[in-house]
């Protein structure tokens, strides 16, 4: 089994929202678990020496309830009514790593995206800087940005929610 195969399996496990996937082939054994299997213990589950990311990708469809009501952003029209937001199946864009969150490529440059903007698959939404490495984070969802959860230039944790996106907008 190659790393490509494992990556493809991770993609499939994620696509079908499986909580756990086990594969045994002779001596080779592979277990993939998504966050919903055990949110408390986040383990690296691929028995591989290669630094492959074994947990699920950073973006996943999670029904977000009332807590995710969009705050009214300054200087832009209110994005959606409360009724719309609480019923919507919002999607989270999470930080894939520990670092510092930046909304724009440089201090004097405009933000990558604002509340109310449309976001496309593969579009850069922010930079996470970690130890002088500058990482552009691409969206894996398409929709409209409903809320930005983190202030510019603040520290973020692994899997911290950065943006809420309405995929149906």
């Amino acid at each position, binding site marked *: 089994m190659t*790393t*490509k195969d*494992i*990556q493809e399996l*991770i993609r499939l496990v994620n696509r079908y929202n499986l909580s756990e996937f086990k594969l045994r082939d002779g001596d080779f054994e592979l277990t993939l678990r998504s966050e919903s299997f055990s949110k408390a213990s986040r383990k690296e589950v691929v028995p*591989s*020496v*290669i*630094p*492959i*990311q*074994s*947990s*699920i*990708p*950073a*973006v996943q469809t999670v029904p977000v309830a009332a807590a995710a009501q969009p705050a009214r952003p300054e200087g832009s029209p209110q994005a959606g009514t409360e009724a719309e937001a609480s019923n919507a199946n919002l999607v989270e864009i999470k930080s*894939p*790593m*520990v670092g*510092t969150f930046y909304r724009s490529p*440089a201090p004097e440059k405009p933000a990558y995206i604002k509340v109310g903007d449309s976001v496309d698959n*593969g579009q*850069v939404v922010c930079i*996470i*800087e*970690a*130890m*002088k*490495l*500058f*990482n*552009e*984070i*691409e969206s*894996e969802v398409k929709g409209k940005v409903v809320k930005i959860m983190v202030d510019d230039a603040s*520290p973020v944790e*692994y899997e911290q929610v950065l943006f809420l996106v309405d995929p149906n907008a």
Partner: protein
Amino acid sequence: MSESRHFYPLIGQEIHFFESLPSTQDLALTWARERQVKSGSVIRAGHQTAGRGQANNTWLDEGGLNIACSIIYYPDFGLSPAHTFYLSKWVSLAVRETLNPLLPEEVVIKWPNDIWYAEKKLAGILIQTSISGATVQSAVIGIGININQDAFGMLDRATSLKQITGIAYDLERIMQDLLSNLNHWLSALEAGRLSQLDEQYIAQLLGLNQKRSFRLPDGQIIQGQVSGIDEHGRLEVVYNNSVHQFGFKEIEWLIQ
């Protein structure tokens, strides 16, 4: 535009040489985004008119005297975002190893990814990646090495090989060594020999097991010893009898 070609296993398979370019890094970012070139392609400029240094200062480049290049690398083996610091380790080790044999004293890595000699900066590295979901899709690695430049104006913390030894160096020779070393250390990364990168990186750190002065964000000045780095790439400094971890902007070196 003139191009030259050499044979290297991955890094440097394709070298795109430009006499003059605003910034190798900016062009490499565009090419990486559009996936226009193969993994390992190198963009090199004889002279950069708007080279990118660290965020605030541009790299001083007089033209033809220094090495300025950017590498486009797609880590198709599956590099997790949690492991991006291995890119810094890989490249820092390769650059250090290229320069170390040319100088009498040890060339060191100033965490996180500057290359220093005798308390001055000899080379700089800038790494920008693109991450989608669980993997690093591409990395653009900018490398600037001061070779034959004599003067650095106001940058009194910068130095060059020639300034140190008084000898003029063959840029092409150094470039070839750099590509060989990049390929050597990349093979360790791609094969998952991470402990080898960890050990070598830590062994070459500036301030390792030496008393050094640092300023903390609250203004406090401490005397501590670098003892290593943690799994996130944070610098570990021992003071007051315990190990403390620092992110990039959480600690400032005070160099005499």
